[in-house]
């Protein structure tokens, strides 16, 4: 998974900003209550904690963010905050599409 998305920092973030984001993330997800999240955050931080690591991650990382295009999209969306509700017309239109199937 993309470490920038896990830590919620832009690609241009510097060392201190990344460290701040890391500390905030592990404060939110301590290892005793959220071991998986803590592990993911720590691994993400190790990948981009300094400029050399960031360059090496950028150039050589081989992790694929999903098994299919939709899987990649969903994994990305799951790192984002919940979306705003659909506008009423759009919701109505979509629900009607679902009813027609």
């Amino acid at each position: 998974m993309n470490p920038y998305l896990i830590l919620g920092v832009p690609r241009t973030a510097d060392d201190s900003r990344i460290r701040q984001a890391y500390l905030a993330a592990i404060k939110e997800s301590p290892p005793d209550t959220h071991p998986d999240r803590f592990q993911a955050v720590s691994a993400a931080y190790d990948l981009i904690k300094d400029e050399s690591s960031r360059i090496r991650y950028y150039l050589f990382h081989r992790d694929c963010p999903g098994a299919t295009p939709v899987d990649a999209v969903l994994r990305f969306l799951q790192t984002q905050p919940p979306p705003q509700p659909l506008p009423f017309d759009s919701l109505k239109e979509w629900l009607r599409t679902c009813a027609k199937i």
Partner: protein
Amino acid sequence: MRCSSDYYKKNRLHRRMGLVLNGEMSLPVVNPTLLTASAEQRAREFLATGKFRKARDEFKLLCKQDRAKYLPLLIQSNLGLAREMLAHGLASDAQQVLAYLKTIATPADLAGLELETAARAGQFTAVLPQALATLANPPPSLTETMKRQLADQVILAFEPFPADATTAALVADAQAVQAALQAVAAGQFDQAADRVRPVPHGSAFAHWKLFLKGQLAFHRGKFNLARQSFAAVPADSAPGKAGVAYRLWAGEPLSPTGPVADHVLDGIGRLAGQRALGLVLAEAERYWHAQQPRQSYEVLRRAVAAFPSENLDLVGALSEFYFQWLLSAPFAAGDLLAKCFDGIAAQRGGKTPVELKLVWRSLALYFAPISNAVELQADWTGFIREHEKLQGANPRLASVAYEWLGQQLAAVRSAEGPFGFGRPEMRQRQGALDSLRKSVILDPTNRTAHLALAALYERLRLPGDRNKLLDEMTARFPDDKAVLIEAARGCLDRNACQKGLGYLDRVRQLDRLDPAVPDLMVEGLLQQAGQQFQQNRLDIARATFDRMGDLLVDQADNLVRSRWCILIRQGLLEHCAGQTQPGDKLLAAARAASPSPAAFLWYAHLARLARGRRTRGTSPDFLPEFQRDQIPQATTGGALRLVRIFKHWIKDAPTGQHYDDCQMLIHYIATAVRRPFTREEARQLIDQLDQAGLRVPCDKEADKFIRAILKRDPVDPLFRLYKLGKWDFRSAPDWVQRDLQAIIAEAVRRGDHSTAQRAERLWESSQRGPVLPPPPPEAGEDDYFEDPLEDAADAADFPFDSDPAAPVAGDPVFRDLAKQIAGMTEAELRKFRKKALRDMPEPLFDLLVASARSSALVPVPPPKPDPNQLNFF
């Protein structure tokens, strides 16, 4: 010219009809009752098997004969047909069937279907009163699914409800659901919850209540609750179908069976604020599941303006998927997409500079294992060029990129030559040197590039360059452990032990527990003590040995720092350059502390040989005692220890020095095999011979152990694997591959996982196809490949890296010849070459030399630098 079979058939039919009309030909007479019975049977079969159209056609004809009997079946066929059409999304066709049905069926027969057809056609308003009436008084034939569909139509009409006392309760529930949906859309979650709360569980709209509960949880970020609520909504209802999009977003795993439905991706796209992307994604997903990754990529490329992108957004995530998938995909599958990228790179035809940059990077990494040096360099420099165009020059990034390129070019490629004479080669020596040097220049703070360059200098035996670089490194990275250790190694290699020990002291200050330091310190102190003995500074030399005190261990198998080994080395030094009496005492103490007399004698003999050329005096010869007393009492456990000791000493030995010792060791092992041994001892010994690269010279003896174990247990998987170990599995005969499969099965059955894994690795290598000759040298590389000195140097550079799957020529004639060649100096080899070439083709002789040297672990002098080497930079 028209000459179709249709034309022929038509003329034939016309002719036949003309004959009938003219009375020249009569049709066969058939009993009408029999015809009707068979037609009815056929029609009923069609109806039973869901072939509604055919059933309808048959019943239509039968109705003409007996309307009362066949009309219900005709209606049933038409109803089935209409529903089938609806299921396939053919709403207008279904409406035509419905129109026909209205002429033959009663309204009660059509109640559900009429509403369903209208809803599928999007005519929610038109059916609202009827739907409400049906829900208020459901006929017994109305199923739960149909009820939910009617309820969906009522909700999705979003129209004022007709005032009717019989439907008042339903209308109230429907209005509550609609109001709640509107409140959710407006972000008024509390109001939405209040609105939907009064809807009872038994209501026809209860599934909408669950849907709303899921929506509220989802938008509040409670994904677990949202998933549970959406999962409880019946899947055949409109909210159930819509809920799938929310569930997937909330983390429910995707079904691996097929692509996600279009309406789900439509919903995800809408929720993500990119409706158009959702629709395109559906098409890309379909291609993906049809194993057409290239088409899948191209759909997005054409339809989405921002694709591909490096941004941290939805399009960026999709782009990352395609470019990263290539790097983790199986080779055959990845090739489909790689061809597309290769085309873009070849034409410089990226849609955007970002695409071109991503393409170069993916190609460089994807093709790295098989590209030749020029291609690899072109891909990587293409990436750097595009990156600089977009984001300006970044020397640090370029430095890391060139470091990678250098390491790729310096990697050992196992050559797969004819006759199975494999010899590992460096991919492109000059390119590797230039890349790493450029990396160091671009970013003097790139520590790993410095270390890689130092390691390359060591492999290429360029001590001057290495020492200069190590001095620079210690100045640039004074507190870096890895650099200091490397510098210490460099100093010890050139006998600058004082300086090397200084570096090691600094490492100890930084990290007292670094496991690499004690061994190096002992080696440095030994070297220093040796120099002091040579300078006749005996007391100082003895004090140097005393300094090793806290570094020594009591583990007999540690051949660097165990007490008995150090006592031997000190005793030998005393004998050679000091005083005999203390030397004897030390050797006696060493013998007492050693794990066995054979180990003591063997270690002392090899240590004496290693110091031989640098000694002034003499030391006792341990070999006669070893031969006289120890060989007759040889044991497998003892042989194992002797092989370890031999491996320890042989690594730095000059060419051919240990040929006689190798023969002695073989003699010892040959004696040991005649005495009792356990399977475990035999396993350890064979593994150790493999690790020490002694399997070839000790082939006959190892075979004896293998045969003995297989005599005890004929299906022992590990020893059967050892027996097959000589084969190159990529071109082995079928029976070898069958044996390999049987070995895997037996190992799995016995729970011997390590053997199973070893056999599986060999099996995988056997599935990579037959051995292919190495690629032809590229333009500019001819000089490099044709330089025999460099070839010989390369062969000796990687003595321990030879391909384990490569076959071994078991022919005794070959073995003897190989041993002979391995022990020759360059001058002797030149003489031998002239003689041998009278009887042997030159290429075969070269292969023989290379093979003999690579299997004999004998280093040869460093190569001469090649002035003709093409400089790619």
